[in-house]
């Protein structure tokens, strides 16, 4: 079935996405990148994207970038005269007063140049998807007028694409977050990209978006932020080494790479080291650049750039006739919104946390892809399949939470696992169904519990109880437990187990992250205790089974070690238990030695749960069902 792809035709970079199996997929280009530089080299060889960028310096007059700024513009527009001064390629007046570019004597319309970018994306998408692509949804800035929209549509047609719809970039971003589901709401979209800043106020009602206002700064973006870091590095280097790097093109190139990397790193770390060995040399020998840049320092360097985005937000609100408090959702677009300070400013301005989670470089293309999916019938509804927001599992020996369905698993789904008993002759097990990310049962939410009884008495670890979780598309969870020997079965149905609010889910996930180290330690302690108990049991059983074949001294040694371990079982630390268990395990091997030649079967189990020696599909796994009292 032919797909309709979504294309974000950007000023600096373009991206594309498609709906597949009810969810979106960003389509990488042939070079393997998720975004493609919107750069076109025209001339002998026609190049688009990274290859075009590589030869930009060689052929500046043949290499067109930021063509989006010319789309649908008249030659007389103020914006065009401005661009004429800064662009290395020639901008001329074309047919009907249209702003065009002239390369090697030939005039190209902005549509034709954009079409070359779209054609590359189309070819790469066809290769990736393994099918012909003829239809697309393309995004444009909300402030684009009719002429600019028409020009974008024409570019698509030239590239051999039937443009099913032109949608606004902020609308696409909101779609990517599924905000079209909201009844009636006002949304702000903050888009700080590589070279432009846009803020849009949208109103949504019954799945239809209306742009109430837009504002921004057409010459503010990530490149300005990089430049600030480069300037700082040049200053610092001059202070330290007395050498001016600003005239050295090779050094500048390396500074630019390092600045971009440092900026990205400081979105997740508080401090980064910028080191460029052998950046330059003078009479005294080679010189190296090595500076620490903290997040705080970076924020100070770019503070005025970030502050510059506040006024447009105020203006957009004013134009829409709204107050900050009217805005219910805030969506972030563009790579620069990864910067924590940018988030902070936006959050402080609107007084609410912006939507995050989708790659801000791809979110517009994704929204366009979703729109393409809706138009193509791939999706009636944006979210066909849901995921379970929290892990579902059962409580096992020692109060450990054992997961069966991990969080973020796409539903409907089912999972089953075999468990066993914790005590000899245990005839019933209790199944406590848990929801949550914590390691211990007590810290998770119990959704319900039931008892499977009437199991034939057997030594511990022998019975096989198959526990099955089945989570349907509506989030209804069916849990069943079946004793394989007797065929007895019990089940429970939990309705709306996942019906938690977003805040509750986030809190539960957050708690798990905060307690991760502590929980892990507690769980390891319980596991050590279980292993120790198991080892004692194995030792006693082995001694019983072997009878008087075991020499008296070995027997008393083992009995002594079992007693030592049992005495401290409830109180000792995990490390202590592990070493004592190991000790007992070594002593146990003496039974084997004494009975050498009498066949296996009684090989003492190491008792270490971590070892995957009972991972077979038939054997009980992952510890035992908690003992029924």
């Amino acid at each position, binding site marked *: *079935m032919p797909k309709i792809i979504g294309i974000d035709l950007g000023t600096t970079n373009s991206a594309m996405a498609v709906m597949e*199996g009810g969810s979106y997929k960003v389509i990488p280009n042939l070079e393997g990148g998720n975004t493609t530089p919107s750069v076109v080299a025209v001339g002998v060889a026609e190049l688009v994207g990274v290859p075009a960028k*590589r030869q930009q310096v060689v052929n500046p007059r043949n290499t067109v970038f930021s063509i989006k700024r010319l789309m649908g513009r008249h030659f007389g527009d103020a914006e065009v005269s401005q661009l004429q001064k800064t662009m290395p390629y020639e901008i001329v007046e074309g047919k009907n007063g249209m702003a065009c570019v002239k390369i090697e004597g030939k005039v190209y319309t902005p549509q034709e140049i954009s079409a070359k970018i779209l054609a590359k994306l189309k070819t790469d998408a066809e290769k990736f998807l*393994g099918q012909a692509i003829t239809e697309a949804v393309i995004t444009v800035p909300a402030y684009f007028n009719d002429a600019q929209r028409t020009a974008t549509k024409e570019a698509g047609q030239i590239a051999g694409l039937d443009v099913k719809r032109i949608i606004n970039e902020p609308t696409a971003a909101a779609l990517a977050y599924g905000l079209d589901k909201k009844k009636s709401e006002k949304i702000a979209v903050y888009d700080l990209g590589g070279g432009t800043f846009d803020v849009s106020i949208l109103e949504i009602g019954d799945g239809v978006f209306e742009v109430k206002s837009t504002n921004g700064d057409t010459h503010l973006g990530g490149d300005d932020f990089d430049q600030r870091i480069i300037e700082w590095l040049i200053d610092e280097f001059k202070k330290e080494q007395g050498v001016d790097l600003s005239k050295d093109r090779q050094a500048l190139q390396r500074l630019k790479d390092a600045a971009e990397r440092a900026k990205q790193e400081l979105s997740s770390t508080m401090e980064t080291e910028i080191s460029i*060995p*052998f950046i330059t040399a003078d009479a005294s020998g080679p010189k190296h650049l090595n500076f620490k840049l903290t997040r705080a320092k970076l924020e100070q360097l770019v503070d005025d750039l970030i502050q510059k985005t506040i006024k447009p937000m105020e203006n957009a609100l004013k134009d829409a006739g709204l107050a900050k408090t009217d805005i219910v959702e805030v969506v972030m677009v563009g790579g620069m919104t990864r910067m924590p300070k940018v988030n902070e400013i936006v959050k402080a301005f609107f007084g609410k946390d912006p939507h995050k989670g989708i790659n801000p470089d791809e979110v517009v293309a994704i929204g366009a892809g979703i729109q393409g999916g809706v138009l193509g019938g791939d999706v*009636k509804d944006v979210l066909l399949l849901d995921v379970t927001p929290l892990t579902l599992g059962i409580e096992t020996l020692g109060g450990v939470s054992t997961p069966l369905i991990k969080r973020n698993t796409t539903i409907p789904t089912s999972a089953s696992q075999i468990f066993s008993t914790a005590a000899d002759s245990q005839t019933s097990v209790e199944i406590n169904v848990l929801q949550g990310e914590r390691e211990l049962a007590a810290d998770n939410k119990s959704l319900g519990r039931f008892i499977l009884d009437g199991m034939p008495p057997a030594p511990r670890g022998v019975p096989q109880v198959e526990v099955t979780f089945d989570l349907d598309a509506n989030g209804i969870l069916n849990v069943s437990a079946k004793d394989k020997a007797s065929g007895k079965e019990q089940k429970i149905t939990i309705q709306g187990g996942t019906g938690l609010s977003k805040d509750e889910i986030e809190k539960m996930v957050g708690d798990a992250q905060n307690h991760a180290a502590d929980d892990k330690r507690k769980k390891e302690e319980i596991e050590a205790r279980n292993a120790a108990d198991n080892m004692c049991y194995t030792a006693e059983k082995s001694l019983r089974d072997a009878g008087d074949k075991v020499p008296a001294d070995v027997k008393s040694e083992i009995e002594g070690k079992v007693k030592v371990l049992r005495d401290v079982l409830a109180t000792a630390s995990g490390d202590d238990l592990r070493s004592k268990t190991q000790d007992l395990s070594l002593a146990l091997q003496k039974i084997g030695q004494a009975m050498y030649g009498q066949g296996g079967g009684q090989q003492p189990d190491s008792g270490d749960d971590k070892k995957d020696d009972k991972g077979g599909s038939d054997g009980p796994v992952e510890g035992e069902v908690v003992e029924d009292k």
Partner: protein
Amino acid sequence: MVNTADDVNIHKDCEAKLDELENNWKRALADYKNLQRRVEEEKTAVVDFANFVLIARLLSVLDNLEMLKTHIDDVGLKLTVKEFEQILLDEGLTGLGVNVGDTFAHETMEAVDKDGDGDDVRVVEVVRKGYKLRDKVIRPARVLVKKG
């Protein structure tokens, strides 16, 4: 049994729903098949280029070691660099062989500066060596060119 108008409508609705569901099911299956094919392809690609990202990052260390070699005449250093180079060589890394005097080629080179203004574009200096990992360019050579 007499068919009332309601029955006919319900029947129609059901048929439409059935069509829609069957259609969705086919789409999901088709998407799944395509995904399977791509996962296979990607798996092969991952195996082929498992080290691509790591090696790409190590290249700047290699640059610096080589530069160090020209400044410090030390046998130990030379042996260390050689060992490092050998490991990368074993993984399939080779130089792109870009030399001064070569005609500019965007496939293997990235121009950082130029002189002159003619049709003949030639490399006058390689400021950063280029490499390929097996047959894929992992980093183009950074060059200064002269147009004559």
